[in-house]
């Protein structure tokens, strides 16, 4: 009996399979890694971790090991990419994080991809396109916020803003706390014209092309212009096949500045209250591993899909057959089999009593004369 086995998969699993096929179409190869990593890797690169709380344990040989809190760090450390040979990989892995509300650890299922080597705007376009296709596969109603850390660093360098002020400055920008940003700049003795430029940059948000044009008006250095040119090229390529839909340019997106140092983007789908896709350029991390290479990638947190699809999930079975002790079991078997044969992958469950937590489409009672559909409360 030939049957589409994917019918048994949950929607999240189907999406994951479809995305893996998509990533392979673009030449990304599956990357499988061990469950643990030496803790030392995370200790030495703590600033690159979104969540520094790590589950550790001692291996039998005494080494301190960690359950992975992050996949990119492992890929970046072990990449085979060189200046002559790039590497494109995708992965489906579990990572372990401390959850803020419960204060306990949780397992997060993460699907992502990384492109490492001597890259250019074409590679960035491809990764951003795949990020967008990933969001589209999850929901037709999606948004992708894009920004560029290089734009901010060039602006702050150009205005000689002290390093000590920058973490709080970025925190204000990321939270759109413009009222506090103004007070911070005044308090730090930033010159009025410089403060005004920073306030303008922090407010740049909206339609991609219009925001890009507004950003060009405040570009005061080559570094800022380079960042904007990169955004424009990638946006141009994405626009060619209508791919720039749902994209906004929002320069308040400046989190994870230690992790990303170029293009940065985040993805949202309607119905999930927080970003579920995070990505960007992380050449700085590669340089930390003494590799002078470019790297860009993204990860989507599949756990968030549970929130999205929970309400859309249908019945557990299509048909429930109820029988009693007087039933002819042979006739019951024939009736159940014939019901299953009616539809491709039709899910039929046979029970004497209705299980408490079972959701079913239709219920039938098995009698001497065959199956009788039960209407109303079975």
């Amino acid at each position: 009996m030939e049957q589409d086995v994917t019918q048994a998969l949950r929607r999240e699993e189907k999406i994951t399979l479809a995305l893996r096929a998509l990533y392979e179409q673009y030449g990304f190869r599956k990357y499988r890694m061990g469950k643990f990593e030496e803790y030392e890797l995370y200790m030495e690169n703590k600033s690159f971790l979104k969540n520094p709380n790590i589950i550790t344990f001692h291996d039998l040989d005494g080494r301190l090991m960690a359950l992975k809190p992050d996949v990119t760090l492992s890929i970046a450390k072990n990449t085979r990419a060189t200046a002559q040979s790039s590497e494109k990989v995708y992965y489906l892995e579990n990572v372990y994080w401390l959850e803020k509300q419960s204060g306990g650890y949780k397992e997060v299922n993460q699907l992502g991809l990384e492109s490492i080597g001597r890259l250019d705007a074409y590679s960035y376009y491809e990764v951003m396109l795949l990020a967008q296709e990933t969001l589209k596969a999850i929901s037709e109603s999606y948004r992708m916020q894009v920004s560029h850390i290089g734009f901010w660093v060039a602006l702050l360098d150009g205005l000689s803003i002290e390093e000590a002020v920058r973490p709080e400055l970025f925190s204000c920008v990321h939270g759109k706390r413009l009222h506090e940003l103004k007070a911070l700049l005044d308090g730090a003795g930033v010159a009025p014209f410089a403060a005004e430029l920073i306030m303008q940059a922090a407010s740049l948000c909206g339609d991609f092309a219009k925001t890009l044009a507004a950003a060009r008006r405040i570009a005061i250095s080559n570094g800022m212009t380079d960042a904007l040119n990169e955004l424009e090229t990638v946006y141009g390529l994405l626009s060619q096949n209508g791919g720039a839909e749902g994209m906004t340019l929002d320069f308040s997106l400046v989190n994870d500045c230690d992790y990303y140092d170029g293009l940065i983007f985040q993805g949202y789908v309607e119905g999930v209250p927080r970003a579920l896709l995070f990505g960007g350029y992380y050449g700085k991390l590669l340089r930390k591993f003494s590799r002078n290479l470019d790297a860009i990638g993204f990860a989507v947190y599949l756990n968030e899909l549970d929130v999205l699809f929970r309400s859309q999930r249908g019945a557990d079975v299509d048909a429930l057959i109820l029988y009693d002790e007087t039933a002819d079991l042979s006739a019951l078997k024939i009736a159940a089999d014939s019901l299953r044969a009616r539809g491709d992958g039709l899910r039929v469950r046979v029970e004497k009593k209705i299980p408490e937590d079972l959701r079913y489409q239709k219920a039938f009672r098995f009698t001497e004369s065959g199956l009788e559909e039960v209407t109303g409360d079975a």
Partner: protein
Amino acid sequence: MLNIALPKGRLGDQVLSLFSKIGFDCGGIYDGDRRLVLESPENGVRYLLVKPSDVAIYVEYGAADIGVVGKDILLDGSPDVYELLDLNIGKCRICVAGPEDYVEDRESVLRVATKFTKVAQNYYNAKNREIEIIKLNGSIELAPILGLTDVIVDIVESGRTLKENHLKVLETVCPISARLIANRASYLFKNDVITSITEKLREVLPQ
């Protein structure tokens, strides 16, 4: 429908009055009763009246699109939300307070009673002062009186409660006021209405 989380109590009343000024009136349906949800379908908004400390959670987790919350709650919970506006209402300060005759012993670990544990820890970390925090949820002023702690870190509005308990403000940690916050996803998917509300509120804010 835009869901707006507001803190129950006096601050909530002030905020409802601000929203009615910008055309999102629910005066006709709010009469101080115990309902937790007030709907104004003609304005496309639903007000959720929740415990002040829960407003940010409702917004961060998307049960509310926007909300109004005291800065003290934001500082202590660090929710991942946009903070769009300082509403300049509900003004007060978070202060360090101690007995009227208090003199700090800098050789000892400072014992601090507070419900704002994160704010207190950050404040003393910045001063490189070693402290021991004792978390209390109410009647914080009792702690130094009974010798439970040396000082307290708490909200001070008029200073009357402190005075009545023979305590005084020793240092101001930070000023507090009510803030308009927005869920990050709602800000993208309901951008027009959230931006419009923010701009209208900006125009009617007390200076």
